[in-house]
């Protein structure tokens, strides 16, 4: 069975929690004791016999305030697929938590209240999904029951969305009319909307093609640890590796051939991303943490000047001259901001050139200078080796998610 990681984002009132509760409930992922506890909570809070929205929020503060603050992960499976759901907060103030959930997703589900259509926050969520190159996007036009399941209301939302999605780069988009509260088109096909010919949400999640979401072309193996002379271990970030392959060890540039390859101690002739492997080379070359094994004729760029889209979450604004710890795969170095090109205005999604600083939750294009060379791909070509994070050297907090341009 294969594995789909997806993230949900929506406004508090769009019915996101209800949708997730419905998905879990109708796919029988909520067990009897969990249902009992939901019923107790629903009655205790005067929310009827069973409010499925309470299935998602985990922290006491979230239950009290009725908001999502941090990502919660949920797990369920159908006969076809295993699912990992990252339920993300939709509020901009918790953007770092939303990006945490989005960064590993194959697919994003964005909810809109069909009565309100695409609001600013919806555009923002779609923009983020496109920025982070989530390969698949589903827009749920929710609360269809409140507009009498009318086709024209749905068509309006779909048109708004199609006009908007031309401006952002998303490869694969589906728009589904749902009523999470009543269960229409979540797991079961709706009888109330015969005009809708597409699949319900769960079937779409089961069938969306994800095998080519990961880069299978460019072999990149960041070395995590050396396990003996000529033996390195790491997880293939992209591409595949075969016994006999000639490889180059970056940044040093030494060449060797793969003499042996194992996956969890099982000898294999070939391994591909995202498997963790142990590689034995055929000759005495130095191989250590921070190195990257690649093919001779397919190399990332080795460079110290980095052009990146930076999502900044530090409490203090990011300004030119600021130094930070940079983590890229298994490589760590220090980097200094040399220029701020522009920042996105998250209200209009327009660009503001030459900003004086990036404030917390700002996203902008930044030039950095690193102390040691990095093996970089462009994020649009490789989500794994085209991304890095920045860490505050004083507090050790992770303060930025960065995408290589």
């Amino acid at each position, binding site marked *: 069975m294969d594995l789909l990681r997806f993230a949900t984002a929506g406004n508090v009132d769009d019915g996101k929690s209800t949708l997730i509760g419905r998905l879990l409930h109708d796919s029988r992922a909520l067990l009897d004791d969990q249902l009992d*506890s939901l019923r107790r909570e629903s009655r205790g809070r005067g929310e009827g016999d069973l409010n499925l929205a309470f299935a998602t929020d985990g922290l006491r503060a979230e239950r009290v305030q009725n908001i999502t603050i941090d990502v919660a992960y949920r797990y369920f499976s159908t006969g076809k697929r295993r699912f990992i759901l990252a339920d993300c907060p939709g509020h901009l103030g918790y953007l770092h938590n939303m990006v945490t959930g989005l960064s590993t997703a194959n697919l994003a589900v964005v909810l809109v209240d069909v009565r309100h259509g695409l609001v600013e926050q919806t555009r923002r969520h779609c923009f983020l999904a496109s920025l982070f190159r989530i390969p698949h996007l589903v827009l749920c036009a929710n609360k269809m029951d409140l507009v009498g399941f009318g086709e024209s209301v749905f068509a309006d939302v779909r048109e708004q969305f199609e006009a908007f999605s031309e401006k952002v780069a998303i490869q694969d988009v589906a728009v589904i009319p749902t009523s999470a509260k009543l269960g229409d088109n979540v797991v079961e096909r709706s009888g109330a909307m015969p005009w809708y010919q597409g699949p319900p949400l769960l079937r779409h999640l089961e069938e969306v093609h994800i095998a080519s979401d990961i880069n299978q072309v460019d072999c990149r193996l960041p070395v995590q640890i050396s396990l003996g002379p000529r033996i390195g271990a790491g997880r293939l970030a992209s591409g595949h590796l075969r016994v006999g392959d000639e490889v180059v060890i970056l940044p040093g540039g030494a060449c060797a051939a793969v003499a042996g390859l194992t996956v969890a101690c099982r000898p294999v002739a070939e391994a591909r991303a995202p498997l963790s492997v142990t590689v034995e080379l055929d000759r005495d070359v130095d191989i250590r943490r921070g190195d990257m094994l690649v093919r001779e004729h397919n190399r990332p760029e080795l460079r110290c000047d980095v052009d990146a889209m930076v999502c900044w979450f530090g409490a203090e604004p990011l300004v030119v001259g600021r130094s930070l710890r940079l983590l890229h795969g*298994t490589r760590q170095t220090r980097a200094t901001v040399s220029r701020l090109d522009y920042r996105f205005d998250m209200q209009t999604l327009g660009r503001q050139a030459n900003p004086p600083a990036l404030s917390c939750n700002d996203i902008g294009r930044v030039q950095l200078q690193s102390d040691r060379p990095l093996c970089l791909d462009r994020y649009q070509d490789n989500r794994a080796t085209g991304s890095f994070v920045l860490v505050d050297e004083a507090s050790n907090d992770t303060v930025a998610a960065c995408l290589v341009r």
Partner: protein
Amino acid sequence: MTALTHLDVLEAEAIFILRETAALFERPALLFSGGKDSLCMVALALRAFRPGRLPFPLLHVDTGHNFPETLEFRDRLVAATGAELLVRRVQDTIDAGRARDEPGPKASRNLQQTVTLLDAVSELGLDALIGGGRRDEEKARAKERIFSLRKAGGGWDPHQQRPEFWLQLNGAVQSGEHMRVFPLSNWTELDVWQYIGRERLDIPALYRAHRRRCLRTRAGILLAESPFLALEEGETVEELSVRFRTVGDMTCSAAMESRAVSVDEIVREIAAARTSERGLRMDDRRSEAAMEERKTEGYF
């Protein structure tokens, strides 16, 4: 090449996390209880570091209320793998006056073991504890990062978690802090059993159906008859065919009636189960936020 299964992907992710832990920390330890999650972690660690040695010891926080079968299994696994085992006892913490046993016939040492655990962290100078916690277990766990920072004092602050982008793990800790590392974050109970089956891992006999004298509480929960539990009014003792779904203390791990003996039978039983694993733990049933409260105090 054949398609990768979810177990292939989860195995690769866990091995990646274990290797990052070995590379980024000075003195990590793997928390070992003898349960299915920790035995899976040991199997994954062996696979992560061969032909090298396990780069960290196993740490068992012994409540003194263990099932004898768990200790027997622990020693068998240590002998078979050559792993270094450290044991720290809750009884020693109590004897030193740093914790006190609960009163009552269903007293548990669940809370007391947090003191022993945090004492071990400072005594041994540990900067990372690898735990078997899974996000599918419970709603506070569902929120936890793979690398989850514990400030000085050992507590978890769920509102100040470091964001975790992609699988770029930030292992930086300051003096007095330590990291909790969860390689099985994205595994479910069923995944763990399927992996045990696929890899033919040795498991404690408690997980297989066996005849046992059990105490049935008034709430209908079955607990193993043991010297640590006193019979209360309205409770009965009966001999049944049971197995355990979680292996913790004898005082709080409930048995379930079962005839599943082989791992295949166990997998089928869990796939069809209508109650969650934690629904059988007395320690989690105390309040809606029981796990969150214990975790902010430094619990596993």
